[in-house]
């Protein structure tokens, strides 16, 4: 940059994560700033508002320990950028994209603005390629496709991290000869959780094709605002410039939203529901909508955001707004977990909205849709009958209903339950599904076409 960056000592106010600098000139919205302390340390900030000669800066590392007299602010005349290169694979970074794994510095191939730009809807290609995660409840009943955004809705203390790691490890497409990468964005999770992920990636060799961004629970919360954007910028580079199929796992979105709420409160904005800013939907969409495929490009970005629902409440603004943007949701259920079933995926309220485009002949197998509908409805019927039995007693159930109750139990035990290292092929998942259906009278299997019953139902 030709221009000499300007430096100011005119900080007049510090409020929460925000800092106000006066007497500035030539500053632009979104510009980055270095906040220098007298002890020589530097923090990063970004201009959130500029009015006349007054700029509001959001300080990512937080303002604790800062005093207006003690800091100098230097504006950098550029937005937030990330240096990207293929060498990022296998590496671990903080929320600003600085290596934290004792490895060498990254030699950048180029710098990209981390806010990205919206994909032109006309340029998008529709997601329709099946991804095999090796998890029966996902592959068969809530199929994930390339370019989809499919979140895990979970709760505190549930094994969503284990499931996310298992998916990252196992996910593959049935075609061969394609390049994969995993971008992992950890926001405000504990050291142990982060270690669990990184460790698993190392052990299984997945780290070689992974880029990890970590902001721990005790790291500055405001850094969490930048982190998913760093991760997605990396994903876009790998997918659309390097032809890779990128799976982005982001955990925990709830922590991200809390950080956003903190800034909003410091700016005294009119709060929306439960104190979250009114623009939470728009903000989240600028993250989630970065998933997708683009016409004429080989690569793709598939997102699995993970969020913990406060009090397991699906109508809380974070899961609610997420559900309004993503293409379905996988629900992790506490009751199943308590029963000792892993992965505790509750298939009834879970839904992959793009599943229909990724299954069937030529993609998975001809009987996929029928089998899926039948398993779903049989399980729903079994669960219903069970509830009925609780109210009215077992005797109120017909003989067939009793069969369905048994089916529901077996379904949870054999189909939903699987090992943490058990990587089931789609054929295997289907085989188990058919096997379970053979418990029921053939006449009850109304969702499956005769020809498939003849061909696949075990005699």
């Amino acid at each position, binding site marked *: 940059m030709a221009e000499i960056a300007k430096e100011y000592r005119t900080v007049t106010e510090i409020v929460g994560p925000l800092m106000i600098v006066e007497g500035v000139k030539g500053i632009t919205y979104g510009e980055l700033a270095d906040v220098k302390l007298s002890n020589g340390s530097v923090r990063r900030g970004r201009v959130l508002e500029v009015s006349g000669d007054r700029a509001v800066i959001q300080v990512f590392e937080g303002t604790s320990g800062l005093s207006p007299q003690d800091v100098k602010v230097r504006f950098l005349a550029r937005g937030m950028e990330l240096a990207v290169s293929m060498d990022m694979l296998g590496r671990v970074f903080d929320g600003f994209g600085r290596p934290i794994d004792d490895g060498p510095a990254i030699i950048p191939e180029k710098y990209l603005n981390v*806010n990205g730009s919206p994909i032109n809807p006309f340029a998008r290609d529709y997601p329709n390629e099946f991804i095999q995660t090796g998890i029966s409840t996902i592959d068969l009943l809530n199929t994930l496709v390339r370019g989809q955004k499919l979140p895990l809705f979970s709760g505190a203390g549930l094994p969503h991290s284990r499931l996310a790691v298992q998916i990252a490890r196992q996910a593959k497409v049935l075609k061969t000869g394609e390049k994969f990468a995993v971008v992992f964005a950890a926001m405000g999770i504990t050291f142990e959780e982060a270690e669990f992920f990184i460790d698993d990636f190392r052990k299984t060799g997945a780290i070689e094709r992974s880029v990890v961004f970590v902001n721990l629970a005790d790291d500055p919360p405001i850094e969490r605002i930048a982190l998913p954007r760093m991760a997605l910028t990396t994903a876009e580079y790998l997918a659309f410039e390097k032809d890779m199929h990128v799976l982005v796992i982001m955990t925990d979105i709830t922590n991200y939203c809390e950080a956003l709420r903190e800034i909003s409160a410091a700016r005294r*904005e009119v709060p929306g529901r439960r104190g979250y800013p*009114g623009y939470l939907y728009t903000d989240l*969409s600028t993250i989630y909508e970065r998933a*997708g495929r683009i016409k004429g490009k080989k690569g793709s970005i598939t997102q699995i955001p993970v969020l913990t629902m406060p009090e397991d409440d699906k109508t809380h603004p974070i899961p609610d707004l997420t*559900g309004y943007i993503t293409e379905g949701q996988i629900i992790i259920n506490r009751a199943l977990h308590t029963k000792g079933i892993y992965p505790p995926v509750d298939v009834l309220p879970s839904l992959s909205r793009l599943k229909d485009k990724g299954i069937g002949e030529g993609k998975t197998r001809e009987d996929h849709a029928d089998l899926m509908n039948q398993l779903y409805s049989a399980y729903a019927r079994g669960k219903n009958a069970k509830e009925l039995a609780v109210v009215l007693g077992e005797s109120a159930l017909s003989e067939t209903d009793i069969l369905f109750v048994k089916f529901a139990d077996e379904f949870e035990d054999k189909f939903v339950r699987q090992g943490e290292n058990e990587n089931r092929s789609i054929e295997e998942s289907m085989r188990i599904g058919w096997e379970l259906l053979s418990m029921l009278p053939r006449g009850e299997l109304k969702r499956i076409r005769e020809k498939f019953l003849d061909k696949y139902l075990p005699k």
Partner: protein
Amino acid sequence: MNEIKGEVIKVSGPLVVARGLKGARMYEMVRVGEGKLFGEIIEIKGDSYSIQVYEETEGIGPGQPVWRTGEPLSVELGPGLIKSIYDGVQRPLDKLSYEFGEYIVRGAEKPALDRSIVWQFNPSVKTGDRVEPGDIIGSVRESNLVVHKIMIPPNLSGIVKKIEPIRGNVDEVVAIIEGADGKDHPITMVQRWPVREPRPVKKKIMPVEPMFTGQRVIDMFFPITKGGTACVPGPFGSGKTVVQHQLAKWADAQIVVYVGCGERGNEMTDVLMEFPHLKDPASGEPLMERTVLVANTSNMPVAAREASVFTGIAIAEYYRDMGYSVALMADSTSRWAEAMREISGRLEEMPGEEGYPAYLGSRIASFYERAGSVICLGSDERKGAITVIGAVSPPGGDLSEPVVQATLRVVKVFWGLDDKLAFSRHFPAINWLTSYSLYQDVVDEYADKVFNGEWSKYRKTAMEILQREAELEELVRLVGIDALPHEDRLLLQAAKMIREDFLHQNAFDDIDTYTSPEKQFRLLKLILIYYERIKKAFKDGATLVALTKLDVLEDIAKAKFIPEDHLKQFDTIEKKIESSIVPLTW
């Protein structure tokens, strides 16, 4: 561009404040910063002009220039709109992507109407004719389905001085009108119109003609009319977008304007990929041939999202003015309201309920007011209509929130989506107990003429059965089904058939996706005849078990998959009902 130049004094997200824009008016378009970003003035206080900017404002700062354009935010109207996909301020997304790549870049500009297309204009008036505002002076074949009428603009009348068949792009002068002012006014194939201003009509009339949609629960139970207004509220995943897409596909409108307002990019791609292959049931032509898309997805700039519904409705009004019946879908009006809220917050306006601006209700009302059935401008007294269907996405599915409430005050049809129905995979998840249509009477009147007075009769019977079912279900929950009298159990059986064999409609099945009014009528009649017969047979001594295990039930369940050109099969099933029930009472 106007020479008057001001300068930026403040930037906060999509809101920029400038000074020095002497003479600028509310809603005037301006260009902001070196990158000449598009913006619109939305507040004036002394020399301070608040501007909502339609593009990302990173890099804009105090001191940078702002230019006036002298014109309010306007759309270009003319041949070439059909089959287009625009962003919220009518930038052609297809052209942008060819020229600027797969991401939307700032400051990118392209005319809304493609100047490289040559149209054949055929006049329908001749030299010396008197013309008044709105008169059609000729036409252009715009697509296989749409004949585009070239009209005298709303503010002009006079004598045709020159007109002839001509080939050219939209800027071609097709006629010269000598105005009342004695001056010559060249008429081209394109008009500009400010989006926030309703296009004038001669008068509004009551919307009395049904707009059939091919969706059974809608047409039979909660119908809409051409020129009517409807809303589809529901929590996420309850099926709002699928309902909107279904209507865009199958509603018997001549023109469809689909506004994707703050929703998913992939949903627009879905429309773009599907519509060219789907055939309009009336003409057999691809549905894209009558469709205009406006796509301002959730991640695109929020100010342009605010503008998108106006851009859409202005385009709809233009086709209405030609005498067409137009349907406009907006998915989702909640995202539009949120865009208003965000801008209002940045203007530091006094917030109303849940942070929405106090004028939320009046804005929503003024949008839906642009729907309607009308006598168009022009001496031929032609009729046109705009039907507006807005999706609403209430937080947590809570219908008491401000956007739903403001919408319900103005729309006449309420299709309430229910997450319990969606959860049990009953689609469309329109709750039949809470939804309503204030057009039911006029649609009954129309349909009863076609179906010998039986349309409304069957519908009423079916609705009574469903309502009774809801009451009985309460009871069953307490005492179990065995405690119910057998008559009631027959009713429950009929209710279940109405739900599963009639109301349930799979949008993704090739046949089930669309049902003509004729077939809807036959289908409902089938179920009700069956119910009549078993009720009678039961009185005459048949047993409950025998009556609920008939194999004609299978035929009734499959009747919705009977193709439109095989409706005779309904006769066969009706006969089978008779022949299988009668023997039970012998």
